[in-house]
């Protein structure tokens, strides 16, 4: 299985995302923002960082990159896409996911090992978790407050589309403690904390993050 990781100008975590894909047993493929060729990958990760310097709004310019046109089309056709941090912001700007991410309500950049509770284990990226499983992965953002109107929030909850919620503390003012969501089909997932930084005991607080990557590989294997 081939997992493509997009590099935008200003991406920071593309190398860690490729490493996580490799750890999970996939072939990691580099995708370039200016190239609309997805190179027959089976899944795509939009990594964290500050694409295009976060100019205009986080993710606003990346959304119109040539590679994103291909990704939006492929995602609408069922391609698994995981957006982490800046990748989540890009997915919201692309309208692949509802809502938006706003500056942290306390105005500070936050960097901590964050506890989360997994709520959805049916998306293509979370099938290897248990419902209500608590995990700890790094969180680092300045604009991570998830917001949406009440109707959208109610819909997300009614359709079991909240992937994970913050536990113990709400680190950025996210509505209803939401840390990650999925689309109706369950192939597109956005999450603010960083699973790709928690795949190796040497460098991460846990290896909990690896399950996102093994989940998608298993989902693809089941489909194939």
């Amino acid at each position, binding site marked *: 299985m081939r997992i493509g990781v997009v590099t935008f100008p200003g991406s920071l975590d593309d190398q860690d995302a490729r490493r996580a894909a490799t750890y999970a047993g996939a072939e990691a493929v580099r995708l370039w923002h200016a190239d609309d060729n997805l190179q027959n990958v089976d899944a795509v990760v939009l990594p964290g960082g500050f694409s295009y310097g976060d100019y*205009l*709004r986080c993710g*606003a310019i990346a959304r*119109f990159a040539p590679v994103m046109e291909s990704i939006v089309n492929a995602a609408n056709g069922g391609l698994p896409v995981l957006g982490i941090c800046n990748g989540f912001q890009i997915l*919201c*700007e692309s309208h692949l996911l*509802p*809502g*938006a991410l*706003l*500056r*942290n*309500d*306390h*105005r500070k950049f936050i960097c901590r090992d964050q506890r989360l509770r997994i709520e959805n284990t049916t998306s293509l990226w979370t099938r290897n978790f248990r419902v209500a499983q608590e995990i700890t992965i790094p969180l680092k953002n300045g604009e991570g407050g998830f*917001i*949406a109107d009440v109707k959208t929030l109610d819909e997300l909850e009614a359709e079991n589309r909240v992937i994970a919620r913050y536990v113990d503390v709400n680190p950025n*003012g996210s509505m209803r403690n939401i840390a990650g969501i999925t689309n109706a089909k369950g192939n597109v997932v956005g999450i603010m904390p960083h699973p790709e930084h928690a795949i190796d005991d040497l460098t991460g607080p846990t290896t909990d993050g690896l399950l996102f990557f093994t989940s998608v590989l298993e989902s693809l294997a089941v489909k194939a």
Partner: protein
Amino acid sequence: MAKIIVDVHLKAELLDPQGRAISGALERLGLTEVVDVRQGKQFVIEINGEVTPEILQKLQELSGNLLSNPVIENYELKVL
């Protein structure tokens, strides 16, 4: 040459943390009457020739999907 101004602001019901920080600074600097500050963005766009109805429509479209995010922001467009 024509000039178009697009002002973008966070929707009124959303917290504007930058505005709040600025409000605190204004108060410290002597503007004790300050009640609220909202920070926005202004885009000054210059184009060749007249603003035709087609160009205006294109500008409206781009103001709504690139210059602002309708989920969190409102925009106002003025042709000078």
